[in-house]
């Protein structure tokens, strides 16, 4: 195909040079350190990220009131929030593996939160949403030009919250509150307990719990982000980073010059770009097939195709 990785200016394997940060981060700490750097430099004055109940209760004014109220948020259920300090960023670090509607805060960020330069992290579909609202700002007055840094994360599919409960509590037989970290890698879904126990589930088990809306998505590596990142392609503890837009290029160059990241050329690391391409093609091929199937789903009745 050749287009599965989208347009990018550079691609490297990288990790944060901040050891403390790496303890909290999912892989190379790219998103957290990038936003921390952008905050320091005044490139952004706040970022929309996914936070947990603990954060929300401590900083209710940083979240939009969701129903049920913050008190009822379950463990590992993320909600979008706007962070503006390093400490807040650290508290939000790590992947949650279920849906967090970050774009829902994008307008509010420029209104009651008063941001002029907004950072946002999100999945490939959320990056598509961000770019659509910049080009077709139907309900996003004066928002598009305020988006100063959009960081995308690689995404094969996402899960509804209840799916994660099903996987952790039923399949992995662990309590949600006892989980320290979740991870998808090396063909497995990993659940790390706070007491040190590790449970791995074959990815096959997880497929039926995936969010159905993900099955029409044709983007694996957040092609429309300024900078996109994910673990795939890089060694453990490192992340693969695609620098895509002019904004991304300028921010990344500054961050690297400031010593925020250690970098290795992507063609020098294992498993490298080949694996990223392979997985991207797998996702795109599978989901193109889903779109095809939708055309003849019923008897003379098609399911909608959103793509023009």
């Amino acid at each position: 195909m050749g287009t599965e990785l989208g347009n990018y200016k550079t691609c490297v394997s990288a990790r944060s040079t901040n050891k403390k940060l790496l303890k909290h981060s999912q892989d190379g700490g790219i998103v957290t350190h990038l936003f921390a750097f952008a905050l320091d430099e005044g490139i952004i004055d706040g970022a929309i990220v996914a936070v947990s109940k603990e954060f929300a209760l401590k900083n209710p004014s940083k979240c939009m009131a969701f129903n049920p109220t913050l008190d009822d948020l379950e463990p590992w259920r993320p909600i979008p929030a706007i962070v503006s300090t390093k400490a807040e960023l650290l508290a939000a670090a790590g992947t949650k593996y279920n849906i967090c509607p970050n774009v829902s805060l994008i307008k509010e960020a420029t209104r009651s939160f008063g941001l002029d330069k907004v950072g946002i992290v999100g999945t490939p579909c959320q990056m598509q949403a961000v770019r659509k609202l910049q080009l077709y700002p139907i309900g996003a007055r004066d928002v598009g030009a305020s988006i100063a840094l959009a960081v995308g994360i690689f995404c094969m599919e996402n899960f509804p919250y209840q799916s994660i409960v099903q996987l952790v509590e039923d399949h992995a037989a662990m309590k949600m509150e006892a989980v320290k970290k979740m991870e998808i890698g090396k063909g497995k879904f990993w659940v790390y307990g706070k007491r040190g126990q590790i449970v791995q589930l074959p990815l096959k088990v997880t497929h039926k719990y995936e969010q159905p809306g993900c099955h029409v998505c044709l983007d694996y590596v957040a092609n429309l982000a300024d900078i996109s990142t994910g673990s795939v392609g890089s060694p453990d503890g490192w992340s693969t980073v695609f620098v895509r837009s002019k904004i991304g290029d300028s921010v990344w160059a500054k961050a690297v010059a400031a010593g925020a990241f250690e970098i290795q050329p992507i063609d020098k690391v294992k498993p490298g770009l080949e694996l990223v391409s392979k997985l991207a093609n797998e996702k795109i091929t599978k989901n193109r097939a889903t779109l095809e199937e939708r055309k003849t789903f019923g008897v003379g009745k098609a399911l909608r195709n959103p793509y023009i």
Partner: protein
Amino acid sequence: MVDKITVGHIHMSGCTGCLVSLADNYGGLLTILDRYADLVYGLTLADVRHIPKMDVALVEGSVCINDKLSVEEIKQTREKAAVVVAVGGCACYGNITRFARGGQQNQPAHEAYLPVGDIIKVDVYIPGCAPTPQQIRNVCVMAYLLLKGTKEQKELATNYLKPLMMAAQRGTTACFCDLMTEVINQGLCMGCGSCASACPVRAITHEYGKPQGVRDLCIKCGACYNQCPRSWFSFDVVPAYEAINEAIMAALQ
């Protein structure tokens, strides 16, 4: 400049918020009027009584079918304009005027209002309440490129306007229910949050990452449905966001 397009603003039953939105482009509006478009008709803005021939008609508001003059003028608009653009929720989908029941002074019998597309054929939609200054600006620039641009510019403008033309063909209702029936029920929602941020009346929240609408709050403006990346999404246009944004900004320099 000889090569300007001619534009008119047709005011049906609306609150003038769409016109204010157009004006909220400030310097950008002046540049548009300087270089790309002559305003040939517009309530309070152009001293013209009858709807003249024009390239683009920007129609604001829905049509009161109990008001003879409104019906006549909207029909004239279709005859006189090459391209009819429905600007804003009322013109596209009825919006708040759907809830009108008449009984207002000084003509209580004016009670039935229809989106423009129920009376005449509409070419392009700009939904939203109010439609954003940037969306109106983008359509104005693209309309100019479509009518007066080079071959490449025409192609870009065609691609850009296509989804908004398809929105016009799709019909005259869009509200939170359309998100349900055409996105969520169709298994397409992935919980990005666009709808909630687009909603001007905060009728949409997310429960467990999926949109829930308070349907009694919904004013039927169509912003959520059209902002949703899974209602329509153009791979011809959106991935070129950087170049297109730059082109629009350059056009307004």
